């Protein structure tokens, strides 16, 4: 096999993994505080269309990413108000957010179909980026790839080693006890849900600004749901997210490189792989009920009302 081909494969794996890393990291933080946002897919789509539209109209990718962050947070705010303040069912509200996001993004993006923007600029460091092998594998990505990796590290550190991380975990495991000793349960959950929304919006924008720099209706194609599955796969621990996301990135890329790698299977079947892999991985992780019981935040999905 051609080594250049392998390098190209690995590099596009990192790009394909980045939206998943971003979205699942945000969702992991929200779930550790006890809130499951099944609307991730809708949030990502709105982030994708907001980021693309802002970049197209302003010419600045930075503004586009900011717009995606803001749009993701706005979507998450709607979810948070319903779930945290109005105590609606998290599953139903999450589904509503996804369906609303599908409609809203298609509506906002109705005049954007067919337009293109310049993809996010790639890093270019003198000498380092031009090194053989190492250059394309380490020093030639766009900034968000590095940001997403850094973010996983920071989130892991914050959750495990800081006071705010302890608060988040306490609220997720035992909200009533946390409330009883004076912790602001609902405020903290607002914060984690908004953080998750911001990152999901950013993940969506990565798809419309870097992966395929254009807007297509429903372009996330289930990435939001795969990100949700990844949190389970990582057993709610940040370090597991990277392994999962890069694995799925690789599987996703396989469909584009399938023919080049000499795999003679209709492209539709290769495109099924990320979805089938998600199911297989879920089965492997959930097969042992103890894995889930030991790691899942105790209050995940339950409404909290102080009384």
């Amino acid at each position, binding site marked *: 096999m051609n080594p250049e081909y392998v390098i190209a494969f690995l590099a596009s794996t990192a790009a394909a993994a980045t939206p998943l890393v971003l979205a699942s990291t945000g969702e992991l933080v929200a779930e550790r505080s006890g809130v499951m946002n*099944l609307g991730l897919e*809708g949030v990502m789509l709105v982030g994708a269309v907001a980021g693309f539209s802002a970049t197209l109209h302003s010419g600045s990718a930075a503004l586009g990413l900011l717009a995606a962050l803001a749009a993701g947070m706005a979507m998450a705010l*709607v979810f948070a108000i*319903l779930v945290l*303040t*109005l*105590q*609606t*069912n998290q*599953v*139903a*509200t999450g*589904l*509503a*957010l996804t*369906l*609303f*996001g*599908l*409609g*809203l993004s*298609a*509506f906002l*993006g*109705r005049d954007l179909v067919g337009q293109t923007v310049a993809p996010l600029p790639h890093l270019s460091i003198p000498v380092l980026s031009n090194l053989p092998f190492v250059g394309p594998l380490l020093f030639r990505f766009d900034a968000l790839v590095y940001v997403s990796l850094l973010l996983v590290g920071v989130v892991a550190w914050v959750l495990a080693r800081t006071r705010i991380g302890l608060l988040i975990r306490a609220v997720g495991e035992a909200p009533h006890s946390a*409330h009883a000793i004076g912790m*602001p*349960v*609902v*405020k903290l959950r607002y914060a984690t849900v908004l953080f998750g929304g911001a990152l999901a919006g950013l993940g969506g924008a990565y798809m419309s600004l870097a992966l395929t720099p254009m807007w297509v*209706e429903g372009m996330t*194609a*289930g990435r939001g*749901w*795969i990100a*949700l*599955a990844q949190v*389970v796969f990582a057993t709610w621990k940040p370090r597991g997210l990277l392994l999962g996301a890069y694995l799925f990135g690789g599987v996703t890329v396989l469909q584009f490189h399938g023919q080049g790698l000499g795999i003679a299977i*209709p492209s*539709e*079947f290769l*495109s*099924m792989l990320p*979805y*089938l892999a*998600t*199911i297989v991985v*879920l*089965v492997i992780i*959930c*097969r042992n*009920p103890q894995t*889930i019981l030991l790691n899942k935040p105790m209050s995940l999905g339950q409404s909290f*009302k*102080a*009384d």
Partner: protein
Amino acid sequence: MSRLEARPEPSRTMMLASPLIAAAAMLVSGSLLFLFLGQEPLHAFYVYFIAPLSSAYGIGELLLKATPLILCGVGLAIGFRANVHNIGADGQLTMGAVAAGCVALYFDGVEAPVLKPIVLPLMIVAGALGGLAWAAVPALLRTRFNTSEILVSLMLVYVAYLFLGYLVHGPLRDPAGFNFPQSKMFGESALLPLLAEGLRVNAAFLLSLVAVAGAWFFCRHTFAGYRMQVSGMAPAAALYAGFSEPKNVWLAFMVSGALAGVAGVGEVAGPLGQLQPSVSPGYGFAAIIVAYVGRLHPLGVLLASLLMSLLYIGGESAQIELQLPSAITGLFQGLLLFYLLAADLFIHYRFKPRTRATTTTPIATESLQHES
């Protein structure tokens, strides 16, 4: 501070009123959206919500588009009642369409008169089995391996879309179809009879009414239906009574999968008449909204399906007559569910009378904003 207080018991009136409030709120925000898009709101409102209903053809279209929503929605509602969330109905619908399409194409060109009358019944059975088989996967994985049925059923939607795409681009493509990715048109014997001359609504609508009646009987008069309702409303009580959770999961997925499969038959043996790269504009997902708006009750689902169907055909007529974007339909669907969830707050809470609010101490009242 608080203006809300808990009701002593859930309000039945609000339970029935909240879908109406949600629909009214959606109509109001719809009118505002029309204004924002530079349309005259009343005229746009008329084109969207009234004009489609003013002709017999329009009513026929309303029933035609309501059919898959009723079939999927009734099945999903049965599961949702027991806290079993099948959100992959669109995939099950697609696989039902594939199975029925294979039967139709297999019997295509068969001239024997004895075989002709059995093609349609075979297609319906095959469609139901196709949807059922697709729904059996999340049910099996949930009961056997404890995996989330939400995620698995959703993943399988994409797999089903891709499988249909493969079939119409490959083995089932019409050789005489100028390379368009679609199958041959089905023969006369593989098409559902129309209910009236000049309308497109077909016999699948009658099947959907049978499904509503059957689901109503199941929920109201069978022990399994009771068991599932207890499991949904009071899981602890269901556990104590020894009700089996796996049984609920299987039953919910079998029923909803088979009904979604039949909905797929209604599409390919009805308005489409062939297999196409997509056989549903998201009916299986809209059915989730239908199930909730219909209060998870079969008769409610019937009414909610008619409303949702109006959103689809209203969107089409607004697109043709006013050049409004077709994406408005999806936006309205999402808004409807949001408004419903918000209005449902008042099933359990009510506004405190103003006079009492000034005299009672905050401690004595249970409040939503209590902890903030």
